[in-house]
Every structure is written in C-alpha cells, then in structure tokens.
C-alpha cells in the first residue's frame, strides 16, 4: 500500500465517512420522493460519491475508487431523470455505501476487498436498457445472496438479506427503467467529463463475470480486522468556538500575571479580585472546552431511518420512524457509546414491539407502526426515549418467564409492582422473544444494554402498557467528565456519590432510630413513607471501622455535645489515625456516660443517603453529610482496579482526594440486589410487607410548639411545607399578621388566636407551618423543636377539647394537643369557606344520611363533625358488623357509607364486600378512610367495591367527595 502521508489519508477518511453518513439519509429521502426527484439532493449524493472517488484515486485506493465510481454512474442517471429511484435501486446503492464505509474504516486493507457483489447490480442498473445484462444478474443474485447469507449470518444481516429481496424483485426492477432507454450514451460521457482518468476500465470489466466463490471468505475476513485498525479520532470544532477559547486562554494568562504580581507585592486586597477573575475565567474556559466535545445526537440518530427501513422490510412490517431532538448535544464519548445500546433498543422496538400489519388491523390500530426516537434535556440530563405503539410488555408474562427461568421466585414476583415486573426484562439472561430471531433477542439483549448504559452513568426506565406500546427512556449525563456529586463522610474520609444516583437524604434523629429502623434477620431496614428501604452501612461494605458522630441532642448533656462539635470543627479533615484515636476517646467517654446505650442505633442520629440505580433503591448509612459539589472524575490506578466499590476518585477543594462510590457495585458487594433474586432481598421484601401491614392504623403527625411548654401536633398530610422565618419578617397590617411569601402575602395565624393556650413564644426565630385550606394558603406560627412521628393515635377528645383543638394524645411521654386547623381557619377567616357552602346540601326536605363505620372514637367523632357541619345526618357504627346491621335496618335512608379499613369484628374490606353482595346496596357509594393508603390496599379496596379512598382527617377531600356522591345519588 503506497499511502505515504498519514495526515492526508486521515483527512480523506474523515471526510469520506462524513459524506457517507450523509449519503445514507439522502438516499432514503430520495427513495421517499420516488419519481419526484429533488435535484439538489441527488446532486449532493452525486458530489459526495464523486469526491470519495476523487480522493480514493489520489490515494491509490482502487477498490474504493471503483465502487464509488459505479455508484456515481447510477446516481448520474437518477440526477438526469433517466432513472426513477425505486426502492430496489436505492437498496443496491445503500449496500454499496455500506461497503464503502467498511472499506474506508479499514482503509489499509481496502484494496483486498471484493466488491463484485455490488458492481454487478450497479452496473446492471446502469445498463438498465439492455435486457440481456439485467437478466443474468437476476439469475446470479440468488446464489450470491445465499452464500453471502450463510457466511455473514450474525453481523451483516441487513446487508445480505435485502439482496435476496432484490433478487426476487429483479423482475420488476426493469419496469421503471424504460425511461432511460432511449439515450444511454450521453450519460457516461457526462460522467467521464467530470472524472476522465479512471472511468474506462471499471464499468466494462467486472460486469460480466460474477465470482460467487471467493465471497464467503473475503468480505467477512477483513471485517474482523477492521476493528483493530481504528485510527486516531479527531473532532471538528467551529472556528468561532476556537476563537473564544483563544480569547479565554489569553485572559487566563493575563490574570496569571496579575496574580503573580499581587502575590509578590503582597497586595491582599487585589489578590481577592484577581482570584475572582481567575475563578470566572476558569469556569468560562471549562464551559467552552466542554462545548468542543459536544456533538449533536443526530449523529447517532441519523442512521436509524436506515435501520428501521431495512428491518421492517425484512420483517414485512410497515413502520414510520419519527425523530425528535436531533440537535440535542451530548459529550462525544457518550455519543459514541450509546450507539450500540440505542441500535439494540430500536431493533427491539421494530422486531418485538411493533406487530405485523394484520395483527395491528385486528386490534384496530393503523397497519403502519410508529417508532419515535426522541431526545431532550431534563433536569441537567439528556433523556432519550424510544417509544413504539406496538403490543407493549406484559408484566405478568415477564414475571412468569423470569420464574420459569429461575431468575426470581414466585413469592418475589407476587410482591412486585407492575413496573418492577416490566423492568425484569433488564435481568441478565432474559429474552422475551418467543423464538430467537437474528434481528434481536439472542437472549443477551436488554441486560447488555443496561450494563452499557450503567457504565455511562445512565439510567434505563421502561414504561409499557399492554396493547398500547412501550416507552424506554434513558437518562444520560451531559458529560462524563464533570458530574455533580453529594459529598459524604465515613470513617474520617470523604466520598462522593454521583447526583444521578441520589434520591434523597434522610436523617433519623436519635430518639426515632429505635422506632424507624427495623431489623429483619441481620438486615436493617428503614420505613420511608410506608415502604421499607433496605439499609447498608458504608463502613461495613468497605470493611472499615464503624464510626459515628454524636450530634444528637436529647440524650446527652449540653457540655458534652459542644465538646464534640468543637473538636470536629477544628480537626477536619482528620487524618485517619487521629480519627481513630479520637474515636477511641469518644467511645471511652460514651462508655462512661451511658453504658447501656453504647449501641450506635440508640445513641446517635443516622444519616442515610437514599440512592438508586434505576432498578433498585437502598439507603446508605454514612457518618456525615456534606455539600453537593461538581467534581472532576479521575480514574484510579491499576492497583485499585480490583476495588469494585469505586467509580473513580476526585480532588477536593483542599487538595485531598475523595473516592467516588459506585452505587450499583456497593449493593452487589453488600449482597443486596433486588433484581438478582437473592434470598435476602425477598426476605426483606416479605418482612417489609408485614411491617407495613402492622403499621396500618397509625397516623403521621407533625409535632411543634407554640409556647415553650405546650406541645401541639397536626396530621402530617395536611402540612404543605415548613418555613423558617425571623420575627422581623412578620408584618402587621389591618389587624392581621402577614408575611411575604413567594411573591404574595401569606396570612399568619397562631394557635392562641383561637384556642385558649399560652401565647406564641417571644423568640426571633420562628417557624411557619404552611397549610393549604380551601385553596388558600395560611401559615401557622410555631417554634421548634419540630418532629414528624408516626404513632397509633389514641386520642382523648374530651379533656382538652376546645375551639381549634380536637383533642390530645400522649407523644413521647408528653401530652400533646391535636390542632384542628380547619376550625382555626374557620374562626379567623370564615369568608374562606363561603364558597364552599355551595357544596352544602341544597335539601328540599330530605337530608342525606351518611353511615360512618369507624372503631376509634376520636376519628369517628371527627368525621361525624365534618358531616353534621355540612348538614348531613349521620349514623355511626363502631365496627363493620354493627355498621352492616345499621345499614340493613335503615336501608334506603342511607345515601353514602364511609368506612375505616382497620376495624375489629368486620373490617372495611369485609364490610364493603358484604354490602356489595346485597343487591339492594349494589350501587351505594362507599368511601374508605385510611391512615396510610398503600397501593395494594387501594387495589384490594377497588376489587371489593370501594368507590374512593381518602386519608383520615383530610377534611376537604373527604367532604368534596361526599358532596360529589350525594349529588350523584340525588
């Protein structure tokens, strides 16, 4: 090979590959236009083929030259309107451009390639007027296709098979040809004039002699070598961007000079401003440099029209592909590595997702399937969605298949939500295709996709509805180089957790640790909004000594707490050895103080980082949470490659290194994988279920104080948010207290405005608990400490009952008054509820009667009050059985049944079931009240006939729904 100048060759390769990328899409566009030829487009393709030919000739790449030459010939015919671009012709051209692509990528061996299979049909098309030349090609092709197919089964499906289709259709191919028939001569002349040197020998020679024998070996052999000859890659950057980089670099140099000057002159005042300047320039420079690496995702998307076209014709499906968001830019490395996973997903959609036209018509869909590829920005990430309107994924089928394959146990499957079941497809060794096709589904599919994307820091999510289609969305970071991370500390060292993996941060105060952390076997779990979350101690996974900070307030005396806080403040970052010594000292103190409380769980608050990697979520217990920072990932040395728990390292502001945690591998190291069917996962899941059930009749309350001595509580679900304010933020206008809040005024109230309690404490730091009542927001002034707890409420609604206070209960040994926020607001702002009065019973004589079934006196009275306030009649039953008797007794009088779920004798489900079984009450509305609306409960309720679910004490929603049903019945 006589290639001397590497640079020129490199340039040729890049340019040609660019041309080829365009050619493909342009050819498809030409095909779509059919006889209606867009001259510009054809010209463009023609020119592309031409410049490849020219370059190849110059480089001595004769085979590339020959192939591009015959392509050019055919394109010339199309350009001059002598040839109508039928799909068959385009097919041949596409295959030829594929081959060109392969050859250019493997440029050093390109002269060894056999291009006969392309030359023959191309020349046949070119000589389309001569029936004797097109006939032999038609007969030859089948055998060619067969040999090719057997040789290149796996990777070149798209190349070999459509050829077979052409062979079959070759008979029809000549029919568009008659047009060019009359004047074939001037055409070559035209081509020749543009490129006279190489024309003569090529078209004539190879055409008549098809050589099918060498084909099986030659095209596949160089293909393998192609991979290793991958040449250095380069990237095109816009000159304006380079210019701005240059300017920034200049500025940086200037600032450096300034900095050196200020340092040598000891000018501290200027140093600060120079520092700021450098800071600014650095971030601008960073941004600009990042931009040079950004490439539009269109580079990857661009090839899919072809993929979809080839595949769908092979599978006898008709599919439209819509591409949205070609311009979305991603880092070059990401663009390069999402190619394969995306191809797989698109193929999957076409092969498994979209049904055959007949099936589609049968279920009432348009016979033409639709695949949408979409890229967009969301929350600092790029989301790529591949959706199809095909048959969708059936979670049940997937679960069953997973069970049959032994990937999960039936018990686990039972506990899975529909979404989890759909996500089973990502399990290793899972293939849903009924039969393995060569298009996709070799049993290694989706899990490979997932692994690839995991490596990129991406997340896969599948949403699917049976019969409606599937949407697979992939979230990718914009760049891999710089990522936002949460910094945490454990064992005296800092670690970074990528923000993409971060779900939330959770802090469990020391006094709740006992209640909220459960032990299942040797596994720890925490209850988080009704779900149980498995916990991992980072220190345990990394096998380092457990440490913890005692910042907890209640159990220790103030002096001790301060000492520890001081010490920590001064000595971070601590050397590990010092840390250990300190820890030992700390332990000693602790042992002295509270022998029985040395168990960490009882003595200190827990900091939990809730992380997820898409398919699984767990809590990581760490010593301390720090800031979130943007970090630059640096790889770890080879000696540390065996440490799977880290994704790399980064340098922090103080120059020390922090390790970046790999959330997925940590879970594997801790033997905690929700998807791999480990015993422990199912054990936890089962235990979780039971615990949640046991917790059912609990109420989540927010406790706070108004004066120092009195503790209050409100149901947590009524609270919108809590704000910290200063007393000076409060303005008193027109006899009312307000504060500025989100661009408006927030009315402020205090418990003592209505109830006879001690006045709000006279401190500067206040809390405002924001409620949304009757579509208005109102803030309740309070002071700390505030806390969210979950308790079985046994409310005493007699002793302390007064306006604004619904009753009292004992929380942590302290009598706590439960606030009735509706009542308080009603007293202070009666006008707010005036609109609501419309709801009220517009009774002409007969007042609707509501049957309430509830075992707790407190809740029953509350609900009863809501109802009677609105003018309804109420009949109460203490449990399901009594309610049932009452219902039979009063029968027709009762308009609506409102029932609790957890009741003795007969629970809400049974009651509903019994009611529904009786034909008299088949249509009576049933509203269920619950403290914790678990998904499975809602489903169960719906199954037995509950019309609606409401959370206890959510007065507005309950009443709205009662009104709604009353109106319906009347």
């Amino acid at each position, binding site marked *: 090979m006589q290639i001397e100048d590497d640079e020129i060759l490199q340039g040729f390769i890049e340019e040609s590959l660019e041309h080829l990328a365009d050619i493909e899409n342009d050819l498809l566009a030409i095909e779509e236009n059919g006889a209606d030829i867009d001259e510009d487009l054809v010209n463009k393709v023609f020119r592309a083929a031409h410049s490849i030919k020219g370059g190849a000739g110059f480089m001595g790449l004769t085979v590339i030259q020959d192939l591009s030459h015959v392509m050019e010939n055919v394109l010339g015919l199309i350009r001059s309107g002598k040839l109508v671009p039928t799909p068959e012709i385009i097919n041949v051209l596409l295959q030829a451009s594929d081959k060109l692509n392969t050859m250019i990528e493997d440029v050093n061996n390109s002269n060894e390639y056999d291009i006969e299979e392309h030359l023959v049909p191309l020349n046949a098309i070119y000589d389309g007027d001569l029936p004797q030349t097109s006939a032999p090609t038609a007969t030859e092709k089948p055998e060619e296709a067969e040999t090719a197919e057997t040789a290149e089964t796996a990777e070149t499906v798209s190349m070999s098979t459509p050829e077979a289709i052409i062979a079959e259709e070759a008979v029809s191919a000549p029919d568009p040809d008659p047009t060019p028939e009359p004047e074939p001569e001037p055409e070559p002349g035209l081509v020749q004039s543009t490129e006279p040197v190489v024309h003569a020998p090529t078209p004539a020679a190879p055409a008549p002699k098809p050589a099918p024998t060498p084909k099986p070996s030659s095209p596949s052999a160089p293909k393998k070598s192609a991979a290793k000859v991958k040449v250095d890659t380069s990237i095109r950057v816009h000159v304006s961007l380079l210019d701005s980089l240059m300017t920034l670099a200049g500025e940086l140099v200037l600032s450096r000079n300034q900095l050196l000057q200020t340092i040598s002159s000891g000018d501290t005042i200027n140093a600060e401003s120079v520092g700021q300047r450098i800071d600014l320039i650095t971030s601008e420079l960073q941004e600009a440099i990042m931009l040079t690496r950004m490439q539009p995702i269109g580079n990857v998307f661009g090839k899919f029209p072809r993929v979809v076209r080839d595949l769908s014709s092979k599978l006898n499906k008709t599919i439209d592909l819509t591409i949205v968001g070609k311009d979305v830019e991603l880092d070059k490395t990401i663009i390069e590595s999402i190619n394969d996973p995306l191809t797989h997903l698109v193929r999957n959609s076409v092969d498994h997702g979209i049904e055959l036209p007949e099936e589609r018509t049968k279920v009432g869909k348009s016979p033409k399937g639709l695949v949408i590829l979409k890229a967009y920005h969301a929350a600092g990430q790029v989301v790529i969605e591949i959706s199809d309107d095909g048959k969708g994924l059936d979670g049940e089928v997937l679960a069953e298949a997973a069970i049959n394959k032994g990937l999960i146990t039936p018990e686990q499957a039972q506990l899975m939500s529909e979404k989890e079941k759909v996500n089973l497809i990502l399990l290793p060794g899972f293939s849903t295709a009924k039969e393995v096709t060569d298009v996709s589904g070799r049993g290694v599919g989706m899990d490979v996709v997932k692994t690839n994307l995991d490596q990129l820091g991406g997340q896969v999510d599948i949403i699917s509805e049976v019969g409606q289609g599937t949407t697979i969305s992939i979230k990718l970071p914009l760049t891999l180089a710089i990522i936002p991370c949460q910094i945490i500390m454990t064992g005296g*060292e800092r670690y970074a957790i990528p923000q993409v993996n971060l779900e939330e941060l959770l802090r469990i105060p020391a006094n709740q640790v006992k209640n909220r952390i459960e032990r299942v076997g040797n596994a720890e779990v925490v209850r988080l909004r009704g779900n149980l979350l498995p916990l991992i101690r980072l220190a345990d996974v990394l096998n380092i000594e457990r440490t913890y900070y005692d910042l907890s307030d209640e159990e220790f005396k103030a002096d001790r707490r301060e000492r520890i806080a001081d010490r920590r403040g001064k000595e971070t970052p601590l050397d590990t050895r010092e840390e250990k010594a300190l820890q030992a000292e700390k332990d000693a103190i602790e042992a002295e103080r509270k022998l029985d409380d040395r168990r960490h769980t009882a003595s200190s608050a827990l900091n939990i980082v809730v992380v997820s990697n898409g398919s699984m979520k767990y809590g990581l217990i760490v010593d301390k949470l720090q800031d979130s920072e943007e970090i630059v990932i640096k790889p770890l*040395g080879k000696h*540390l490659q065996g*440490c799977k728990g880290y994704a790399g390292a980064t*340098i922090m502001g103080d120059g*020390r290194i922090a390790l970046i945690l790999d959330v997925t591998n940590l879970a594997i190291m801790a033997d905690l994988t929700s998807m791999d069917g480990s015993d422990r996962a199912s054990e936890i899941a089962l235990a979780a279920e039971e615990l949640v059930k046991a917790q059912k009749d609990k109420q989540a309350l927010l406790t706070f104080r108004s004066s120092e001595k009195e503790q209050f509580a409100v149901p947590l679900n009524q609270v919108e948010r809590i704000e910290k304010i200063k007393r000076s933020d409060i303005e008193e206008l027109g006899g009312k207290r307000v504060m500025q809040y989100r661009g408006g005024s927030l009315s402020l109230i205090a418990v003592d405005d209505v109830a006879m309690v001690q006045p709000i404490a006279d401190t500067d730091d206040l809390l405002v608990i924001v409620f949304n009542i009757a579509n208005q927001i109102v803030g309740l002034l309070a002071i700390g400490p505030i806390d969210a707890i979950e308790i079985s409420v046994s409310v005493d609604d007699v002793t302390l009952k007064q306006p604004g206070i619904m009753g009292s209960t004992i929380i942590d040994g302290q009598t706590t008054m439960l606030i009735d926020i509706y009542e308080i607001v009603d007293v202070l702002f009666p006008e707010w509820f005036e609109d609501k009065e419309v709801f009220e019973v517009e009774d002409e004589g007969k007042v609707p009667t509501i049957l309430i079934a509830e075992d707790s006196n407190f809740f029953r009275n509350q609900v009863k009050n809501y109802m009677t306030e609105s003018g309804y009649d109420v009949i109460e039953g203490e449990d399901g059985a009594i309610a049932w008797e009452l219902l039979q007794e009063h029968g027709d009088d009762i308009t609506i049944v409102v029932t609790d779920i957890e009741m003795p004798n007969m629970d809400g489900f049974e009651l509903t079931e019994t009611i529904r079984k009786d034909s008299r009450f088949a249509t009576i509305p049933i509203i269920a009240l619950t403290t914790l609306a678990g998904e499975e409960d809602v489903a169960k309720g719906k199954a037995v006939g509950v019309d609606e679910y409401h959370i206890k004490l959510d007065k507005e929603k309950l009443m709205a729904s009662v009104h709604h049903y009353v109106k319906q019945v009347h």
Partner: protein
Amino acid sequence: MENNDDTVNKNLVELSTFLVGDALCGMDILKIQEINKLIDMTTVPQAPSYVLGILNLRGQIITSIDLSKKLGLGETNLSHDPRNIIVNSKGEHIGLLVKKISDVVQANTDKFEPPPSNMGGIQGEFFTGVYKTEDKLIGILDVEKVLRLEERN
C-alpha cells in the same frame, strides 16, 4: 523522562539508591520522575494491603505503594519521614514509599551480578541483580515486576 535507551548504550547507569526496610536497593535514576516527602494520603478501603492510599500530585491521582510491604520486608514506619519515589509505569504514575533516600551511585551495567541464590523467595523475584560498591551491596529493583498486578481471584 524515560529515555533509558541512551544509557543502555553507554553501559553506564546512575542508580538512585534508597533504603527499603534495612535493605539498600537501587533503580535507574532515569526511571524516577521525582521524589517527594510523604504528603497527605487518602486511604482506599478494600485496596490490596500494600497500597497505602492515593494522593494528589499536582492534580494527578497517584497510587502509593509501600515498597517494603510489597517486598515482604514489613511495614514502613510512617512516622520516620519516609519518601515517595514517583515512577512512571505504563503511562501511570505510581508512588513507591521507601524508608530513606540514599546516594546516587554510578554503576556499570556490566558489573551487575545476578541476585545471590540465598535471596530467594518473595524478595528475590523483584530484583534483577546486585551491584557491589566498595562498601555496600545494592539490590537492583525491577520496577515493572514490582508493579505488576498479581492475579486476582
């Protein structure tokens, strides 16, 4: 940094010598990028025991290896001001922690002798030979071998 090809021609090398435990070892000075004092290190839980940690050398993350431990000569005492020899191995910078840096010795490669047979075992495999000066014996360290990864299970 790594133009050690030139020196081979002349048969003359400069050996940087240092103490690993109590053993005097040496390596071609041209393989050394720099020698540092011990700087603040970050421990890496779960790393092989001879890896002391990772450190930040002007923005590069460097794995620091306790040479003494790697050679099976016990742990280097960190409180006696040990030094980090930064070497470049296969494109990666690695720090080798040694007890003390000693002289630079000019040596003729022809005079290198094979390691004595009683220097077998774990230490022996890391030495290419010994060099005898008037009063000392220097073990010539094969850095690449030291840094080669053991097969992991």
